[in-house]
Every structure is written in C-alpha cells, then in structure tokens.
C-alpha cells in the first residue's frame, strides 16, 4: 500500500497569493496532477493540515475544487490556519470528519496501514496542543488493534526542530503523547506538517517526521532567534510505502518538471 502525504496547502480564494507571493492553488494543482500520473498510484492521500490560509468557507470551497481531480480517496485534517466548522461544512460527504463530535479526530481502518488522525488545533492560536480527552481516545484506539501497523497523522509535530520561530508555535507537552505512543509499538510513524520541511526525530519509540510544504518552505535557519521567513525551495510531497517485511518506507518527491529519467546503462554497458 502507498499512502501519499501532502501538507500545508494554504489555499486562498479569489486568486489571491499567500503572503502576496505564493500561488498556492497552482502549486497544489501541479502536485495533484503529478500524484495522479505516478506510475504506482497511491492508494490514499492524507493532507496534514493548513489546508487553507484563513479558514474561510470560500477557501474551503476552492480547496474542494482543487482536490476534485485526485484519482484516489483523500483524508483531511486541520492545522492552525484551519477552521473546523468551515472545513466540515465544505466536505459534508467526508463522514470521517465527524467521527468525533468535537475535534476532527478519526481512525481509518480500510487499509493494510491504519490511519489515526489527531487534532492539534487551538482555535485562534498558531501553536498546538492535544487535549487530555484526545490522548485518552488515542490510547483506546491503539489498544483496540495492537497488531495493526498504524500511522498517527497530526499537524503540529511533537518535537523541537531547531528553527526558533517554529519552535515558538510548537505542540505543547509532547511528552504526554510520547507516553501513549511508547506503549503501542504498532505505531510505525507520526506524520506531521506545520514545518514546511522534511525533518525526522526519534520520538516515543517510533519515528516522528514532518512533510515539506506543497507550495512554500520555511527558511532553513537552525537558530533559536531564527526569523519567521519562507523560501521558494521546490514544493514536495511524501510517499509512505507499507511493506509487510520492511515496515514503512518513506520517500520525498518534488513537484515540478525535471530532466530525465536518464538511463545508467545502454544495453549491458554503463554509459561512459
């Protein structure tokens, strides 16, 4: 099974650009076309938050249009730029968004790899948190199927990144989550967004990671004083390939047109 992760879309309505620079809609369009054209089509796509830029209904309506061409099922979860009610209203057919009445938390059991989504959003804040009820729910959900390989998906990563301004809007009290995850070794990964960069950290006995942004990236500045800035490094998405023997294999793929593929060999001979 292949799970595709697309993150931090920041879609705006009325042709507006994010921060007056980033054409986030065009970036998502290209990504969707590229995912559809993958030789091995993913079985599902998970979108790890910051789906739109200001949580407005018209932004979600446009998001829906942009995602419509995706050839496979997709799953949405909110980030700090999202607004739960508007998100749910725009996707009435996405029943999983209402598995939990309050927060957008859900478990998807249709695939060989189980998807468990957590909602880290604090309305009005850029930083994130997990409610005690969420942690209790997670504990129950993981206990229910201890043998099923699982990925947890959430917007805010539960780790420090070294990029000062992002660490100021991080997830509060990640240790509580680590405690739960440590008790459930079936958790293959914690897949997050928020950082607009690919980062991996050992966490609670598993691997936690963030996905690059599908439009713009956070500037690489590993300083506690790092300023809040973005760069137009290449947009990317990730493919998480579940292999029963190896476990979860994570690849990063760039959105865009690149030269190649170039063959290494011409017939039996390495090209000289």
């Amino acid at each position, binding site marked *: 099974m292949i799970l595709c992760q697309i993150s931090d879309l920041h879609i705006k309505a009325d042709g507006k650009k994010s921060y007056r620079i980033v054409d986030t809609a065009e970036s998502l369009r290209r990504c969707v076309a590229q995912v559809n054209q993958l*030789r091995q089509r993913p079985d*599902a796509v998970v979108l790890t938050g910051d789906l739109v830029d200001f949580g407005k209904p018209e932004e979600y309506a446009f998001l829906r249009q942009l995602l*419509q*061409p995706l*050839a496979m099922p997709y799953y949405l979860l909110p980030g700090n730029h999202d607004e739960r009610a508007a998100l749910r209203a725009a996707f009435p057919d996405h029943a999983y968004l209402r598995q939990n009445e309050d927060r957008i938390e859900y478990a998807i059991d249709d*695939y060989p790899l189980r998807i468990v989504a957590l909602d880290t959003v604090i309305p009005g804040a850029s930083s994130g948190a997990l409610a005690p009820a969420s942690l209790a729910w997670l504990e129950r959900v993981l206990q229910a199927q201890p043998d099923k390989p699982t990925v947890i998906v959430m917007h805010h990563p539960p780790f420090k990144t070294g990029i000062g301004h992002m660490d100021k809007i991080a997830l509060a009290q990640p240790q509580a989550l680590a405690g739960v995850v440590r008790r459930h070794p079936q958790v293959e990964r914690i897949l997050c967004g928020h950082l607009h960069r690919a980062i991996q950290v050992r966490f609670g006995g598993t691997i936690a990671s963030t996905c690059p942004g599908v439009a713009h990236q956070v500037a690489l500045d590993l300083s506690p004083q790092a300023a809040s800035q973005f760069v137009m490094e290449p947009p990317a998405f990730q493919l998480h390939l579940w292999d029963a023997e190896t476990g979860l294999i994570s690849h990063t793929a760039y959105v865009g047109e690149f*030269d*190649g593929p170039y063959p290494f060999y*011409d*017939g039996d001979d390495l090209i000289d």
Partner: protein
Amino acid sequence: MGNAHYTLKSPFMKNAVSIQLIQCGKTFANGAQALQPIELDIRPGETVVLLGPSGCGKTTTLRLIAGLEFPDAGGQVLFGGEDVTALPIEKRGVGMVFQNYALFPNMTVGENIAYGLKIRKMPAAQRLAKIETLLEMVHLQGLGQRRIDQLSGGQKQRVALARALAVEPKVLLLDEPLTALDAKLRETLRADLNQLLRKLGITAIYVTHDQSEAMALGDRVVVMERGRIAQVGSPQDIYYRPASHFVADFIGTMNRVTGRVHDGYLRFAGGMLPFTASSPAPAATLMFRPEDVEVVTDGANVQGILLSTFFLGDRTRLVVDIGAEQPVIVETGKRAAWQAGEAIALRIEEHALLHFNDGATI
C-alpha cells in the same frame, strides 16, 4: 504525413489483437468506486478513444488495460481472447506514450528509439535498420543523431511514439499525448498520428479530455462519465445521435430550449417546434446544434432578437433571444451587417431536434 507514396509494410497489421474488458470495475479500499464494472470490446487494429471530463474513469480504464492497475475480483482483461488480467505491464506487450515525453535526454534520438531493442539483444545491424524504418515512419528521417534537447515538443513526441513502436507491442496506449503541445503543433501531430494509426493497423487506445482530438482520431469513441460508459460509437454517432443528455451536452455546442408541450409542439415565446416524444411533464426541453439553425427570410418557425455576434472568419456566431430560458447560438455563413437588437427569423428542421428524458428539463 502527407506522403502519398508511403510504402512501409506494417508488422502490426497481421498481429493486431482484440481487447475485451469484462466486468472491469475498480473500487477503492474505502468503498469509493473509481470505475463501475464496465464491458468494452475493442476490435483488432481499431483506434478507440476514451473521452470524458476529469474523474470520469478514462485513465483508470487505460491503466487497467496497461496492467498498471488491476480490476476488482470478477473483472477480466483479455488480449486476443487470452486472459491477461493477472499480468503486470511488463508482460502484456503494450507500448505507451505519455503527455510528458519521458525520453532519455542523455541519449540521441536513435539511441532512445533503440533502447528497448538493445535490452532485447537485437544485433546492431538489425537495430540500425530498424531505427531508420521507425524514423521514416514518424517523419524524422536523418535526425537519428540529434540530441533530445535539440528537438521541438512535437518532434519529441514523435520519438516517444517511435520508441514505443520499436519493440512491436501488441497494443499501443496513448495517454493525452498531445496535451503538452501548443495548438499548431497539436494539429499537425494529430493529423500525422491519425494517418500512422490507420496505416499501422495496431490496436490503439487513446485517452483525452479533448473532444476534437477524440473526433479526429477515434474509429470509435467511448464517452465516460463518473466511472461509467455513457456511450460507445463512431464520432458521427456520438455527435449526431448522442445517447444521453450528458453526451449531448459534453460533445460540441448544444442549444436547449425549454417550453410547454401541447398538441405535438414545444411552445415558447419565440415560436414552436415539433415535439413528438412523450413527455411525462408539461414542460420539456429540446436540444439542437448551432449549425442546424438557419437564418431565413421565409419559412421561419422561430422568431428572435439578436443579442450579440462573434465574427469567426468563415462564419459568424449569433446569440439570439427566442423568448426561452436561454438564448440560442446560431452559426451562419451569411455575410450581413448584423445589428444587436434586430429581429432574426430562424428555421430549425425537425430532424435536428433531440430530446432526452434523463433530466433534460434542468
């Protein structure tokens, strides 16, 4: 390719295979259906175009034929009567051409074309002869030594086609091969491709969202809508005898006039048109093509007011208010000084009128 003395013998004609899709559906793990179980019979040597809007299932169908995707249990794919359902793409003997050329830029045109032959250990002399034949076939004679980055988009796609044909596949699959080209190149390559496919006699499946491409290239066109086949037919069938409201609306420009049915006529403010079908409701809709409306001085059956005109060179497109919900579009070759607001008399022949009961009165 404009060459009347084309003498290349096709190695494909005698080997052309039929393709059958039997109850081929595709359901995702979450229960969503990308493709309802479909039946499709493709004749040996036929060019079939899969046409429809995004999300209609045309690419999924192509991928099922290619062996990049496998149907739900119970579905079968047959090549020449042989069950290939379980075979992956490498074992099906298919050649593919994609929208993005997927050529090897570090190899010459000739090396690109010969790539598959070298892997199959074809001796060098034979290979070179084959390259020449293929270059001639796609009208790139003498360009074998060129680098890929020295080619235009159209030439690249010709190389991609030659490379796909080099290994003599049983079936040629083309996935929006002209979409990345500009309009002029697209038209030239489309005409060449049309001739080539006819000449080769290879079974070819062509996916596009562009109806003019479908009309120009398909022996038959499969119009798809939301994971189903809406209609299979010749381009003429699809255009003149659409099987449903969706097909009628999707292909070409279609006028629709809604009115009240009474005494065998559909009546609206600007006139009345013969209505012979039985209508379950008092209101009904008739559809007709812009070219089936004539601007007349005598014998009009519809009166209207000219709203606007678009001069298209060989003809003029008129937008006419006939007192129905929507204005109608008329195409005329008449040279006249059209004035918005003037009265226009129209004649629409009965044989041009189409009526569908499947939600036509929306």
